[in-house]
């Protein structure tokens, strides 16, 4: 069961890392985020 539960975990965690950590930081540099 544990193996089954871990399925999909890599894509989920990597997705969060890429979109929040990497893309989020790059986006924050764009001028549209300035108040």
């Amino acid at each position, binding site marked *: 069961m544990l193996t089954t539960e871990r*399925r*999909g975990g*890599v894509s*989920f965690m*990597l*997705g969060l890392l890429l979109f929040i950590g990497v893309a989020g930081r*790059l*986006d924050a540099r*764009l*001028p549209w985020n300035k108040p």
Partner: protein
Amino acid sequence: VEQAVIAGHFGFAAGVKARERAVPLWALMLACQWLDVVFVPLLLLGVERLEPLDGGGYGKVIIHADWTHSLLGALLLSALLGAFWRGRARLVIEAVSFSHWVLDLIVHRADMPLLPANAGGFPRLGFGLWRWPAATALIELALVAFGSALYWRAALGSGARRQANLAGAVVLASGLVTLALNLAGF
């Protein structure tokens, strides 16, 4: 998580950023996965669980997420996350968080209750698009492609061409990598 819809939610959030430019991208990305972010510790604690079908695989699962993916639970969790923002950003974060439930409703196999812990025993919801995994994967791909395209185009309109191209390419690539890994069973 179990090879659920992952990339599609990110793609949707990228598209939202194109219209709601005052809301940080990271916040939209967190919001679109917020229900699953809360689901993971509950899964590890055994409060919520997964029931693989036919040995598992993309979409081959009944998800017993009776707290985080109940209609009322999703509304409450969305309101909780939204409480960290003010004004329009709060509404946008709440809506994007709740969009997770709506997108899941399309694909889940009638396993989403109305009330937390399926109180009252009402019929569970889910249109079951996962019975056709190829169609679901194509829709996820379309969400990633369309959402990334909207984001990229809007980012270019912000005036910083090089930074916009980098951010747009990373959003698109992240979506494609996430979807490919998910379909491959990782």
